[in-house]
Structures are given as structure tokens and as C-alpha cells.
């Protein structure tokens, strides 16, 4: 409550006065720490919950308590709850996506494990040879290590995606997000014979984003594109992802497929919750994607008339350079 004193705000109730006094005394003597929550009655008669952080300071041999109060209004609480619900929904949706991709991820994990096993077996066998080549053995063991790391990276990626944690905004390279997202889908692309075309802009400004949420948004769009091409001839299946700078201070990402496209009468509804054209779809993917993009202060739309197929586009504001936060690593 910047610029206002406690007295301006209102008064403590009679029964709270001794509690507050005891706390303040404890603070003065350095016996208590942390923040307290007090409810005061404001002049217009409503209740206001304050979160008070206080600590002792010494000025000319007198010990005083300096307190900072922050109002936690009902609106704030409601917002906080809504945010938690939303994050919960995002998380549940991520888990369900992982569930749908489980078979592909198992294949993906099998690749480094197969390679690792071959190199390990080859090493074991060459140990039995009289004329074993130590350099060759070393090279094989290096491969064992690097393939084990590769498997570890896949597990790490899945775990990060499955984790439930509050979003953290960092200046992020959008092209890295694109590559990370595609790494998830490598197996599916190969299996469905989809040609992937990347047209990633160079030296793009970074965007302030939560990497996992942005991956989630992009993953939803790309998986939709893959599904849209199920009836397309394999030789015609092409997924194009473009990133480019969009004036002013915006980065634009487009995801295009060569599927059947969306009829105009449906285009207006695809972002609605529980609207789906798929027999086993829930209809929350695109609605979640739009929410995610909007939470990053961007916009998501369908690019009109760019057939064949469908093009989804979204923008994100570029991060201000002084908002650069060093990564945690």
C-alpha cells in the first residue's frame, strides 16, 4: 500500500490489538521473523486483509519496527485461484499429450538404447579377441557414453514437459523452441512420412516466454497439422514452420500443413473450448494454445487463403533487452 499509512487504511479490530502488540514486541526483540496477516476494518466499513512484513531497525539507540503492508484483496485471491486452475489445466493437457505420444516416445528412446547396446556388445566381443584394438575399443565406449546421454536427454525433455511448476519467463530464442518441439515429434514425422521444412529467421529478437508453455502451444499446433495430413498422399505431406521478425518489436511464427484445410464456417469456431472435428478429440487443444499465446501477450489466428492446407500464425512481443534474465544454469 504505497503512500498510505496504516491509519489511513483503517483500524484493527479490538481483539486483534493485543495479538499485534505481542508480535511487534517479539519482532523488536528479534524473537520473531516472517510476515503476518492482519485484517483491518476500513473507514467505509469493509474488511481488508493485509500481508505485513516487519522487521526491527535501530535509530539513535531506539529500536523501532518497520513494517510494509500489502493488501490481499478478494479479487487478487480470485485471480490467483483462476491462475492456478489454468496452470492445472495446462498441466493436465500436457500429460494427456504425452500419453498420446507415448508410443512414439518409446520408439525415440529405443534408438539410442539400440545403438548403445550394439556398441557395448561389440566392445565385449572385441575384448575376447587376441588382437584387440584399444583405440577402437575406446571409440566404441565413447559411443556408449554419448548414446546413454542421448537417451538421458530424451527422458529429461519428457520430464520437463510433464512437470507441474509455475511458469517462469525468460528471454527465449523462438528457434530453439521450434527445434525442441520437433525433437518430440521426430518419430511421428518419420513414421507418417512427413517432410519437415524449417524456415527459421536469423538473429531474431528473443521473446519473453516460459519455454515449456511455448513448447506446449507449438506442439499442439504441429500435432494438429500432422493429424490434418492423415488423408494426404504421403509424397505430398509437408509441414512448414517459419519464424520471422514482424514489425514493430514482434516475432511471428507460422505452422503450415498440406492437409485438407479448414472450411471457412469452421474457422471461426476452432478456438472454442470443446469444439472438435475429430471423432476422439476433446476440443481443448487449440483453445489452450490460444490462451497460452495470449498469456504471453501474443495473438493466434488462422492465416486466410493460404491453401492448400491450413496455416496457423501467432505473434509474440520481443523481450526488451534490459529484461534479459540470466538462465538458471
Amino acid at each position, binding site marked *: 500500500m504505497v503512500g498510505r499509512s496504516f491509519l489511513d487504511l483503517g483500524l484493527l479490530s479490538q481483539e486483534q490489538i493485543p495479538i499485534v502488540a505481542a508480535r511487534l514486541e517479539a519482532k523488536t526483540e528479534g524473537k520473531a521473523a516472517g510476515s503476518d496477516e492482519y485484517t483491518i476494518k476500513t473507514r467505509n466499513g469493509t474488511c481488508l486483509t493485509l500481508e505485513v512484513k516487519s522487521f526491527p531497525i535501530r535509530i539513535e539507540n531506539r529500536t523501532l519496527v518497520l513494517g510494509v503492508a500489502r493488501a490481499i484483496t478478494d479479487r487478487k485471491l480470485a485471480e490467483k485461484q483462476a491462475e492456478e486452475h489454468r496452470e492445472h489445466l495446462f498441466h493436465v493437457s500436457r500429460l494427456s499429450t504425452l500419453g498420446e505420444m507415448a508410443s512414439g516416445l518409446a520408439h525415440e528412446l*529405443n534408438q539410442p538404447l*539400440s545403438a548403445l*547396446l550394439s*556398441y557395448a556388445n*561389440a566392445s565385449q566381443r572385441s575384448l575376447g579377441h587376441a588382437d584387440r584394438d584399444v583405440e577402437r575399443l575406446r571409440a566404441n565406449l565413447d559411443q556408449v557414453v554419448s*548414446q546413454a546421454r542421448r537417451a538421458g536427454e530424451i527422458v529429461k525433455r519428457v520430464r520437463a514437459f510433464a512437470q507441474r511448476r509455475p511458469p517462469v519467463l525468460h528471454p527465449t530464442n523462438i528457434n530453439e523452441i521450434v527445434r525442441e518441439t520437433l525433437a518430440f515429434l521426430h518419430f511421428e514425422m*518419420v*513414421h507418417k512420412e512427413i517432410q519437415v521444412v524449417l524456415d527459421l529467421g536469423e538473429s531474431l529478437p528473443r521473446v519473453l516466454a516460459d519455454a515449456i508453455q511455448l513448447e506446449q502451444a507449438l506442439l499442439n499446433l504441429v500435432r494438429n497439422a500432422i493429424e490434418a495430413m492423415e488423408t494426404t498422399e504421403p509424397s505430398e505431406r509437408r509441414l512448414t514452420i517459419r519464424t520471422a521478425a514482424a514489425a514493430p518489436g514482434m516475432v511471428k511464427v507460422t505452422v503450415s500443413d498440406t492437409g485438407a484445410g479448414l472450411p471457412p464456417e469452421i474457422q471461426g469456431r476452432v478456438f472454442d473450448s470443446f469444439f472438435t472435428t475429430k471423432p476422439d478429440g476433446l476440443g481443448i487443444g487449440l483453445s489452450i494454445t490460444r490462451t497460452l499465446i495470449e498469456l504471453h501477450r501474443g495473438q493466434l489466428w488462422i492465416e486466410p487463403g493460404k491453401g492448400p492446407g491450413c496455416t496457423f500464425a501467432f505473434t509474440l512481443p520481443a523481450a526488451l533487452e534490459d529484461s534479459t534474465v540470466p538462465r538458471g544454469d
Partner: protein
Amino acid sequence: MPEPESTVFIVDDDQPVREGLAELMRTIQLNTEVFATAAEFLESFDRSRPGCPLLDVRLPGMSGLRLQDEMTARDITLPVIFITGHGDLPMAVEAIKKGAYDFLEKPIGDQALLDLINAALAEDQRRRKTWVEVNAFQERLTLLTSREREVLDLLKAGKSTTAIAETLEISQKTAQVHRTRILEKLQVEPVPALLTALHRFNMM
């Protein structure tokens, strides 16, 4: 045992996977060649080279199954071994129905793989030997006169010399001469051995 020049043609889009397999083959002194795509393998293919292809059932571009179709279309009869992942059983079954030699599920036990490779290479040698014999036999068949061909057809039908003489309205002696000539020209005797050879070469 397979002849030394046999090669295992490894086709897998994942570089460490194919190099790892090649390294494993080298430990039992097998020649290997690696390819990232089905197209690369087909391009470099030379039918005079013995060996067996080891194919990932899922390959980008042309899948392992489509490569198999393409090989059939080009009359390439190498014994193919497929490598499949979890849940690829229907694809493996299809491959076997279309004449693949066998399949293995990832991750692969090295002994099972090497045993299977050796068996496939031996199968290739067997097929090649048969192929050489078939060619030589067909060559010899062209030496027969049209009359001798008629006699051969009747022999195939299980007719005796007497019955052949009656059917063709020739003397028994003439029929016997034809029969002897046929066996000489085809370098096989007696008649039951000829019939066995025709059976083996699918010419009955």
C-alpha cells in the same frame, strides 16, 4: 559358412544405430555397408554382390516395406532381415508374408542378430547356387529340338516310352533315341533325376 565376400547392407536413418550395428558385425569379420535411406541402398545396388539387407521397417522417405516391394519389382531376391520397434508386429507380419527372411525386435540381442545374419547369408549363397544351376539348365533346354520338347512334356506327364511312341505315332526305338538325347543334352540321368531337377527349378 557364407563366402567371405558376402556383405550385410545396413539401412537405418539413425547414424549411431547403423554404425553400431556395423561395428558389431565387424567383430565377427562380416563385411558391412551402411545406408541412411532406402534410395541410397537401391542406387548403389549391384545384383552380382552376395549378402543380405538389414532394414529398419520404418525409414524416412521410402519405408522398409516399400523398399521390399521395390526389390521384388526389380527381381532382387536377397534375403531381407527387418528390424522392428515395439508395436510394429503387424508390419513385421506383412513383411514376412511378402517374403522377408525374418525380423528382429529392438533392442536386439547380439547373438540372435549375428546368428540370423549368418543364416540369411547362407540362404543367399544357396539361392545364388540354385540360380546358377537354373540358368545353366535353361541354357541346356534351348538345345532341345521341337520334337524332343514334345517328348520331354510327355515325360513330365509321367508317360512311359511305349505310351510316348503311341501318342506321337512313332516307333518305340525312335522314342527311346529321343529320350536318350534329352538326358544327354540336359546332362542328367536317369529320368527320375530329370523330374526331380525340373521340380527343383519350378519347371514342372
